[in-house]
């Protein structure tokens, strides 16, 4: 019993509270660290996936490449939370939202920097890396 198994639990760093530690798309966290939000695209059929996934259900292959979530999307819908589940109480109020980038959609939070009275369905938004306390990483939507 000499060698200790290395556990790649980088995904633990994603978000305010992460419920997942180990995933085959752990590189997502490194990309956040480097300032990029990324999804995956199947090299065989060309399907875009966000959130990123390791496997294509259409081709039954794992032949994926990373792409960067870039450019402007459109705010599809949102909600302002006045109450939070356990572990998120200090964040309230905050907004969750879906933004449509054309080939894929992204679920996340709206940045606290966006003026509340400007938030409306249809507004142009972009995604940006959000550095949280304790070295944690996430992403938010900002006004485009």
């Amino acid at each position, binding site marked *: 019993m000499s060698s200790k198994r290395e556990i790649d639990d980088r995904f633990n760093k994603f978000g305010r509270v992460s419920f997942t530690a180990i995933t085959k798309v752990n590189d997502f966290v490194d990309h956040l660290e480097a300032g990029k939000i990324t999804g995956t695209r199947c090299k065989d059929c060309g399907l875009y996936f*966000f959130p990123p996934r390791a496997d294509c259900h259409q081709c039954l292959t794992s032949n994926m490449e990373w792409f960067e979530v870039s450019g402007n999307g459109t705010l599809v819908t949102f909600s302002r939370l006045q109450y939070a589940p356990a572990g998120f109480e200090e964040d309230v109020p905050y907004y969750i939202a879906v933004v449509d980038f054309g080939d894929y959609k992204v679920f996340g939070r709206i940045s606290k920097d966006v003026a509340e009275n400007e938030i409306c369905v249809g507004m142009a938004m972009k995604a940006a890396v959000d550095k949280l306390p304790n070295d944690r990483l996430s992403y938010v939507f900002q006004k485009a």
Partner: protein
Amino acid sequence: MGKVAIIGVGQSAFVRSYPGSIRELVFDGFKEALGDAQIRAKDIGASVVCSAPEYDKQRSPAGVFAEYLGLNPQPTFYVETLCSSGSTGLRLAYSLISSGLHDMVAVIGFQKMSEISSAESQERMGRGADIQWESTFGTMMPAYYAMYARGHMEKYGTSLEDLALIRVKASTYGQLNEKAVYRKPVTFDMFSDPENRMSGPVASPLRVGDCCANADGSSCIIVAGEEKAKSLSKKPVWIRGLGAASESVNLAGRNLFSGLTVARKAAEQAYAMAGIGPKDIDVAEVHDCFTIAELMAYENLGFAEPGEGKELIRNKETYKEGSIPVNLDGGLLSKGHPIGATGGSQIRTVVLQLREEAGDIQVKNPEFGLVHNIGGVGLYGNVSILGR
């Protein structure tokens, strides 16, 4: 293939905090269903237990219940589709019977939510969403349904007043339901009074009054094959159509934010199997965990065209006297929503309607009733059509 019927229904009172253990809670609904069907535990060939496991401290509760309810040595097992577990149990019972494996099956739903705090419960329900990519943002059920409310309002001009009207209807009937957890009157004016609790924001645009409450409760449905049903029951209620569907967990994988595709698909299947359409439905129970959920159900079930659900509630068409009465037992908004017990409670109400035993809320001479039961935020959808 023979027909399949419901020959007994039972439900515990839905309460804030049940003064007993889960086996005792389940006993309440089971006892009522057996009395209703006039059968004994030994007559039941198999039992299906429906609940959302994140609330259960007991691992594998089916075995515990089988012992407590006198259902040994018959087979028993667990089925789960979040809030629609009860309807999934009915679907399973139907297939167990129509396959010939069993001639009588008990569908037992339960949830004891009071053992954990409300924030804890929101967090656990939130984990019914995508824990890897969504829960990390601090999501919870009201916020997800709120995003659908926003989508519906933007697309169709549905208003907060329309949603308040849904809650007022629920309260009208909830006050009559002695098994409901919330029986106090809720008026339209409460929603415009900033001092009133009902108007308090939860997750915009939804307010306290738009949300159902947690509850403890159990339900039980006794399902039987044609021969058995005809020999045992004076008023069997037949399962005429069943539909079920699933959808992307992550909202990023969805295209519709003004309705639930699972409900549309499940409804299409159920209508096709029953050989009828929305106009043939005389009474319905829909999954109103939030006011917007009932409004979307009107449209997804074909009671109204997309965007016109608001007209039904404005014109009181979904009241007892209207063209399509919906949630005359007060709905989840009044009864409370003990996850695994909810589907069975909805089925019970429609069965009592079809047997013309629904008391104060009885509609006139119904032939077909419908149950719409949704798991998660449109993650799982079940539609069941019952008939005389």
